[in-house]
């Protein structure tokens, strides 16, 4: 049988796998990426269909247990108030993300020093800044420079439109004298690198049929493949092989027909994010690593962080955008930096949400008794459709070793690989932050003229951001990877996804995940001759 050997094996073709593969391609090494899912076909995306709202809630749901494709793996969420959201395929979570693209703040890397909680990162904002810039060029970011909540950053494309909803909410923020700014977004407002500009389909979170939203299947991957990277789909990795010398030797995986395959490699890079990465490491047990690969610290799977979300929406007399336009609109970081007088440490970002489509508006309204059924239904529904807007509060989650991913003793995927199980509880700090965000959100909506305000916290199916389960650090007893993504225990094994986050910040993580992946790749390139020392 022909030996399948490569220089670099990347596992996972999502946000970080695409970035690291593209960056390493210039080395001319033989690089293969294994992805358990498939290429997305934009004609399948819900917005190309009349029943786009129910398609989004079913076959394009961000809940893998509900979506339940052959390419998904089940997740036991029973012991968590927040359910995991993800997508398995080329592009990973970027297929279904909203495209909100904030950077971390400089303070986010110094949490212990500034606020006495969690740990400082072993790197800082300045280290990542050039990689943020590089990633912004690759993904194509729309936004407006000059945001006083941030250090200066470049503007590539004009911001997404304010629209009716943004105008309503901006007036609310202004009445209170609070910060707001057009969101940084990966929704292209102009033609960019082969992508067409946004035409306001309004269904960004179910895949962009226009191709305006930057998912890595249409940004990094075409460039990486042209540069020589081989991407194999429907290849689900079961475990990482360990050589006799304790180094990673490649992987065992199942192809689309369920056949077991083996690939060997000089370097292995894991890019499966905050749930998939610890699952793979914990499934890679061997005589040398009986507790899972790279787990001498015992921290693989621990310190799971989500972003607990609050949602605050109100009804307005004026028409809102509803589902029209990119979901991204404006954000506020008035409450981002720590102010102990608020009763909690760290902070959160408000992200405006323009509204929802008519079917989802009525479905939600009827199930929470705000839209009548029966004789008064039609009048009641007409008072809600395209009349609702609001925001979500994305709260920083602090690491806690009790919040963790383990292997479920019974649950398995379709290839028989043990599935992940979560143990997660909200901290008191998170609960106080959620309460505070709801109170401030209500003030904003009332200042904007809203009524019949509805709130939810935490959003139960809002586990979009998966972080911390193989964190980085200099001390090998307190972290899984070092300050440039290399596992302390296995010197040819790298991790580049959200699992290496030390803290979560109060913003969406994808921009930082990708900047980290580019930084790790660049460090590897600079150290090629001493990579394993």
């Amino acid at each position, binding site marked *: 049988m022909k030996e399948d050997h490569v220089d670099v094996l990347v596992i996972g073709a999502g946000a970080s796998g695409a970035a690291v593969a593209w960056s390493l391609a210039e080395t001319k090494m033989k690089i293969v990426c294994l992805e358990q899912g498939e290429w997305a076909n934009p004609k399948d995306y819900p917005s190309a269909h*009349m029943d786009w709202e129910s398609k989004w809630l079913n076959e394009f749901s961000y809940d893998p247990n509900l979506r339940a494709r052959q390419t998904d793996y089940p997740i036991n969420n029973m012991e968590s108030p927040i359910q995991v959201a993800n997508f398995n395929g080329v592009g990973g979570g970027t297929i279904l993300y909203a495209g909100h693209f904030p950077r971390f*703040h400089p303070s986010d890397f110094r949490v212990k020093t500034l606020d006495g909680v969690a740990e400082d990162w072993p790197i800082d904002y300045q280290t990542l800044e050039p990689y943020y810039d590089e990633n912004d060029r690759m993904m194509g970011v729309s936004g407006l420079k000059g945001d006083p909540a941030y250090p200066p950053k470049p503007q590539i494309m004009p911001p997404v439109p304010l629209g009716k909803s943004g105008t309503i909410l*901006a007036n609310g923020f202004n009445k209170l004298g609070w910060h707001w700014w057009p969101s940084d977004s990966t929704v292209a407002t102009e033609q960019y690198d082969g992508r067409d500009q946004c035409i306001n389909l309004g269904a960004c979170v179910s895949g962009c049929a226009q191709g305006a939203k930057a998912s890595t299947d249409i940004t990094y991957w075409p460039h990486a493949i042209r540069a020589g990277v081989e991407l194999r789909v429907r290849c689900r990795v079961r475990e990482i092989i360990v050589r006799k010398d304790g180094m990673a030797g490649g992987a065992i995986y199942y192809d689309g027909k369920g056949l077991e395959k083996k690939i060997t490699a000089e370097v292995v890079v894991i890019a499966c994010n905050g749930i998939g990465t610890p699952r793979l490491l914990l499934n890679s047990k061997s005589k040398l690593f009986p507790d899972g690969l790279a787990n001498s610290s015992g921290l693989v799977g621990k310190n799971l962080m989500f972003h607990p979300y609050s949602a605050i929406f109100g009804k307005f007399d004026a028409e809102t955008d509803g589902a029209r336009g990119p979901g991204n609109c404006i954000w506020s970081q008035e409450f981002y*930096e720590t102010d102990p007088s608020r009763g909690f440490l760290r902070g959160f970002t408000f992200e405006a949400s323009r509204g929802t489509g*008519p079917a989802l508006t009525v*479905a939600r309204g009827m199930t929470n008794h705000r839209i009548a059924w029966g004789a008064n239904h039609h009048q009641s529904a007409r008072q809600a459709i395209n009349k609702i807007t609001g925001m979500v509060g994305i709260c920083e989650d602090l690491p806690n070793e009790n919040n963790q991913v383990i292997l479920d003793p019974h649950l398995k995927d379709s290839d028989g690989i043990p599935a992940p199980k979560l143990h997660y509880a909200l901290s008191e700090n998170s609960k106080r932050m959620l309460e505070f965000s709801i109170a401030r959100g209500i003030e904003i909506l009332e200042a904007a003229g809203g009524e019949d305000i509805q709130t939810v916290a935490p959003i139960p199916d809002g586990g979009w951001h998966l972080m911390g389960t193989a964190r980085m650090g200099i001390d090998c007893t307190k972290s899984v990877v070092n300050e440039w993504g290399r596992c302390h225990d296995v010197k040819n094994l790298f991790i580049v996804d959200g699992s290496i986050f030390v803290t979560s910040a109060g913003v969406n993580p994808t921009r930082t995940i990708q900047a980290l992946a580019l930084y790790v790749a660049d460090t590897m390139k600079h150290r090629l001759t001493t990579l394993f020392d």
Partner: protein
Amino acid sequence: MNQLIGSTSPFSEENRNTLRKIAALLIPKSEEFKVPGADDDAVFTHFIKLASGQTNSINKYLEDLNQICRNDHGDSFLKLQNDEQISLLNNSESLLELLLSYVSLAYYQDPRILSTLSLKSSPPFPGGYNVEQGDWSLLDPVKKRDPFYRKV
């Protein structure tokens, strides 16, 4: 030979009829707004397709509903008067919770209904929508603020 007698429909004929009646009660036909009820053929077909993901739960709740009807009224749900049916539905929270979502999703994705709401009656793609830029001068007071991120 019983295994040769079957149906591809997730619901029995009686349960389909009950669901159609419930759909009409939840979203009735309206002369005022010139719209059909959710028992309309196309809407109901879509509704059944969406509800088929919860067949077991719905069949169980319908069985419970009919049992209550027989115990309290001596007849099945379909034989009761409208006001009695509405009263029973009001007390069937679990069934309503499931059906309200499916009925509204089916109804408000029908192009005829969307037209009566002056909404686009075709998929978002490829036409898209116009979204106004809005008044960017609203940002002027924020632009005057000094940077307030923490320096480290």
